[in-house]
């Protein structure tokens, strides 16, 4: 069985570190052989999302039990919902703690547990309330911009004529699709806004080719968020990815409409 322990140093003689998400090291110990793997805690260097990275690491290593001093409720929920048993209030030397665990020293009364498979099959009230809160928050985040977009669609319908749009969208499949892709690339945000805008464009006689390109590039390109992508993943990656997405949007849009027309007949 593999156990993950938060540790101050990268050896079994180390002290158990207090916080799972922010400990300098995570030791993954095989209780049968006492072989261990010491890895710098992926979450130790940066606070935002630190716990989640440590959880992802534990899952990736096939850990069944986590021993630590303290584990935040959020991290505990993540570990427990992935079937990893969490035991807190653990202190002392790593090696001694492992021996104590093997000897059954951490009784059920001390343990905080996440039974294997429990989360995926059993939803208790606390999890449901948490999911409801998350959904309400995500939903609330969509609404302000969506409201603005819907109000803009009203203005668009009332003030922009089909003739004015025909100056840009001339009916040329490739050019219209390209314009659609460029439009979708500049704007960003929740994709629901692109559906509302796309439907309004269709009502104004803009081709489905262009509308599809808007929908595809809305999420995949996003010039607005390019600086954030460059900062995280590098200039070359961000530029190549965005350019590739912009170019790909054209065949995706054209093929989508062609296949649709072929199926409908």
């Amino acid at each position, binding site marked *: 069985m593999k156990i993950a322990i938060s540790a101050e140093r990268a050896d079994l003689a180390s002290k158990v570190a207090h916080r799972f998400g922010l400990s300098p090291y995570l030791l993954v110990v095989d209780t049968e052989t006492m072989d261990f793997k010491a890895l710098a805690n992926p979450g130790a260097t940066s606070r935002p999302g630190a716990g989640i990275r440590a959880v992802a690491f534990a899952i990736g290593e096939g850990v069944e039990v986590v021993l630590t001093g303290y584990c935040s409720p959020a991290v505990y929920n993540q570990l427990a919902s992935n079937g990893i048993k969490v035991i807190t209030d653990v202190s002392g030397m790593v090696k001694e703690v492992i021996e104590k665990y093997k000897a059954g020293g951490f009784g059920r009364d001390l343990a905080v547990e996440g039974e294997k498979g429990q989360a995926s099959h059993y939803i208790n009230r606390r999890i449901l309330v948490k999911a409801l809160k998350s959904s309400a928050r995500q939903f609330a985040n969509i609404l302000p911009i969506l409201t*603005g977009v819907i109000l803009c669609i009203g203005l668009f319908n009332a003030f922009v004529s089909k003739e004015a749009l025909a100056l840009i969208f001339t009916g040329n499949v490739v050019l219209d699709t390209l314009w659609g892709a460029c439009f979708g690339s500049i704007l960003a945000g929740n994709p629901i806004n692109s559906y509302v805008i796309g439907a309004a464009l269709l009502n104004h006689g803009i081709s489905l080719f262009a509308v599809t390109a808007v929908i595809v590039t809305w999420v995949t390109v996003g010039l607005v968020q390019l600086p954030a992508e460059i900062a995280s993943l590098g200039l070359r*990656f961000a530029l190549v*990815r965005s350019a590739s997405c912009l170019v790909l949007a054209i065949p995706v849009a054209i093929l989508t409409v062609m296949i649709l027309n072929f199926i409908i007949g």
Partner: protein
Amino acid sequence: MSIEKSQESKRRTQRPSRYMLIFPLLVLVIYGVLFALTPEQALAALKSSGEVCLNILPPLALVFVVMLVLNLFVKPAQIAHLLGSGASIKGILLSVAAGIISMGPIYVWYPLLKELREKGAGNMPIAVFLYNRAVKPFLLPVMIAYFGWLYVSVLTVLTVLASVVNGYSVAAFAKRKTG
């Protein structure tokens, strides 16, 4: 310390940003000006917005339900785990799945993607993940209401296929320097 502080800062970041209100407020100001200048057309615009709003309400209710189901069963840690599976066929499929089930704004995911890359994840799975964020299961009710299920099905399949092409392109043209 700091547990309370960090929880408070987390709560703060989870609240809808005030900046998001600027856009709808700005549009309302434009409406105000237009009502003063051309009241008939402004009223027509408002009526048109009302119709759009009525059309979108039923699928929006479904959006909330699908969001709730995803929040119940999909955890960020599972997504991170799926993403770290390399550039094999299995890894690509897992990156596709991770992109599709991931929720929230993209900038929330950048620090995690950066971390995964520093741990050795290639450009390909990350590019595939980012492309597949265009497929949003919780928004399907709205998309189907506007464009029909056939269009949505075709576009979804092509989006997934294009994500793999995009992944290979990025892997080929955005190779990182080594050594």
